[in-house]
């Protein structure tokens, strides 16, 4: 429970689509990875999913809420985003898209193992984030962004990732 409050304390309420990358806990100060907070427990047990490079590929790139993913991304030059990311990556970076379904209205937290740019789309419209922050120290989670979502189908866009693989998780914030 303590860890849960620690995580909440590092999320900052910010307006609109603010999505920043303040200093994460230095890796050098982490002799070993610590377990994530309970609501993000699946972070330690990801399943593999290949990102879609365009809208047609989304059906095969579905992810589930509360199930962490070891994502294999596409080269940025091969991607046709549904909506142009606010911070598109360069030609040597990686990204892609995933589809997910929200069954209950609430706050959902996207956690990443990098500082990549993320958008959550409803149709073609990007949802404004409700808060952002870095992950719990030494958890392997570098960045977390919160969104208030209603039931429905959404697209998660990843842009400007430095590596071809990316740990990520969409979790219901409880």
């Amino acid at each position, binding site marked *: 429970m303590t860890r849960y409050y620690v995580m909440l304390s590092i999320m900052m309420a910010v307006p609109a689509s*603010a999505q*920043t990358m303040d*200093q994460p806990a230095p890796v050098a100060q982490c002799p070993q990875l610590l377990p994530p907070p309970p609501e993000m427990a699946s972070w330690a047990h990801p399943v593999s999913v290949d990102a879609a490079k365009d809208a047609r590929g989304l059906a095969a790139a579905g992810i589930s809420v509360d199930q962490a993913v070891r994502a294999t991304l596409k080269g940025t030059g091969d991607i046709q985003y549904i909506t*142009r990311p606010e911070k598109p990556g360069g*030609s*040597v970076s990686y990204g892609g898209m995933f589809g997910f379904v929200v069954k209950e209205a609430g706050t959902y937290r996207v956690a990443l193992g990098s500082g*990549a740019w993320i958008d959550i789309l409803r149709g073609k419209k990007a949802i404004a984030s409700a808060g952002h922050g870095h992950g719990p120290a030494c958890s392997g989670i570098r960045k977390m962004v919160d969104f208030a979502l209603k039931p429905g189908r959404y697209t998660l866009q990843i842009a400007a990732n430095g*590596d071809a693989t990316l740990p990520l998780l969409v979790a219901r914030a409880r």
Partner: protein
Amino acid sequence: MALAGLALAAAAPVSWRWPTPPVPQDNPMTADKVALGRRLFYDADLSINGTMACSACHEQKRGFTDGNATRPGVHGDPGLRNVPGLANVAWRKRLTWADAALTRLEDQVGIPLFGDHPVEMGMKGQEAELGRRLGKDACYRAMFAKAFPEKKGRIDATAVSAALAAFERTMISFGSPYDHFLAGKESTLSPAARRGYAVFSARGCLSCHGGRDLTDDALHAILPGAPADRGLMEKTGLSADRDHFRTPSLRNVAVTGPYLHDGSAATMAEAIRRHAIPPATGPLTDVQMTGSQMADMTAFLDSLTDPAFLSDQRLSMPARACGRPL
């Protein structure tokens, strides 16, 4: 053709004209150069792994800052200093937080691109890769050829820096309520902001935050420094320069937090309170003020925001280049 870019970007939100910013003779302004610089500013291919454009840290909606205290570089190296805003940067006599010798935007570009203290965009030793990477794009080849006909289309770090500097010189902000007030439209400044300006003046803030851009462009020591950052002393080696940092412009200050060279002040009020200098060492001897005075001061600082600058499409990420969507 010189200064054509400035004419392009300098919208006239108020009725009077501002002075022409200084432009180096060896990098005259052209519309083609500004267009190229704008595209480069938003292109993450200027970083080693394609994850960080200039705009990653310089977000227009935040006065070209990023909302972080400091920001890690492309490899995760911790950032050292807070991202400065870019409004009217063409007029800055000194650039970055603590280098009195860095006076040209063309030279400053190398700090984030090729610097290693700290590593930001990670391109040190990768100048050839920069040209190779951009040169794979036919549109870039055409844009460089038009912007730098004397280089016959050669794409290199020098041309990249010159184009970025040209674009940055179009980041002109003279549309705040305070500007309108100075231009004679007194009603644009609220009573609270006027009272705040009176406090700002009476407390000596103008001694450093004076002039059109509310900075003297000089370096001062106002805070006891953190061991990790000795300010100007890191460049000069002189102990007298310890903790000396450049006075930041206060243009758009309300949207450029957090504040101070290390981003350690989360709010404007906190930043103001930390200007507590012992009487013997500086003109600002008393920043203690009542709650209403602080509210007035904050209202004045809010009046320095230029909304048109924060949303000017000519400064935003381009949607097209060479007639095609990006």
